[in-house]
């Protein structure tokens, strides 16, 4: 399982126009201006590929910060 720092970096890579340095573990990702369905889908695809974890819609919806999402991924990782 990758570290939280690695997860944050991979998460930030899904954004095209947002400064990756702005995205931290405690970032409320739904508030990022560029956040959209397409970015959300890219995040789900990245997690599937990098962590072999399939997230559901409510996993994204119920997570507030990037770290919250990491914890969901960690709890589902094999």
């Amino acid at each position, binding site marked *: 399982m990758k570290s939280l720092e690695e997860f944050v970096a991979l998460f930030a890579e899904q954004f095209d126009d947002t400064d990756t340095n702005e995205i931290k573990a405690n970032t409320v990702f*739904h*508030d990022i201006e560029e*956040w*959209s*369905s*397409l*970015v*959300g*889908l*890219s995040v*789900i*695809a990245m997690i*599937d590929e990098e962590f072999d974890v399939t997230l*559901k*819609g*409510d996993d*994204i*919806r*119920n997570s507030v910060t990037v770290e919250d999402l990491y914890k969901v991924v960690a709890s589902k990782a094999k």
Partner: protein
Amino acid sequence: MIDSGKYIFRPATVKDIPFLVETVIQAEKSNTGACGMANHFGISEDELRGYLVQIFEEEVDGCELSVSSFLVAEYEGQVVAATAGWLEGANDEELPSAILKSNLIQYVMPREAIMRAKDNISITKGLSIEREGGTYQREYSYVIPEHQGQMLIQSLSEMHFERARSYNPPVKKVQAHVFGENKAVILSNKILGYKITKKVVSTNPKVLDLYPSNTMLLFEKEL
């Protein structure tokens, strides 16, 4: 800030018809300015809205213009997302959904619009992919801008899959037709486990005057 705990997911009712009409219009546009259905019949979006209300009010089950096909997401009493799905051919007379849809359209739309659509058939036939009887069909998704990014269509899709599995016998396959330019839906379908099994491309240049794309993809998912 949106409170994710406030979403309610449920089947649509006739009270949701205005939102279902908006869903059809926005999905027909596929994030472009071209409303395929309005263009196909040579009518304005507003005219199409009126006809779609009448069609939904007929409450015919078993196609993409059936209230009973839709699942919706509600937030604080307002419907904010919807998407359709139905078991193909599962009606009293086992009619294909294309026939049901065609009957509904011919019942409410004026003759001139039907004639214009017939004139356009030669342009649009290259994009046609037949729906397979006994499969669960997915169509038309829309989320209002304020609630995009909440993965509502993902959750509604998961509900549709559960609905498909609940039939007796359970449905084994889901199909979805998607215009080739619709990146968000294509990515969403791949994440949901669909595979592209067919691609048709219309070589008629006039097709882009009517539809958002000259390419139609068939996605299939085994349940």
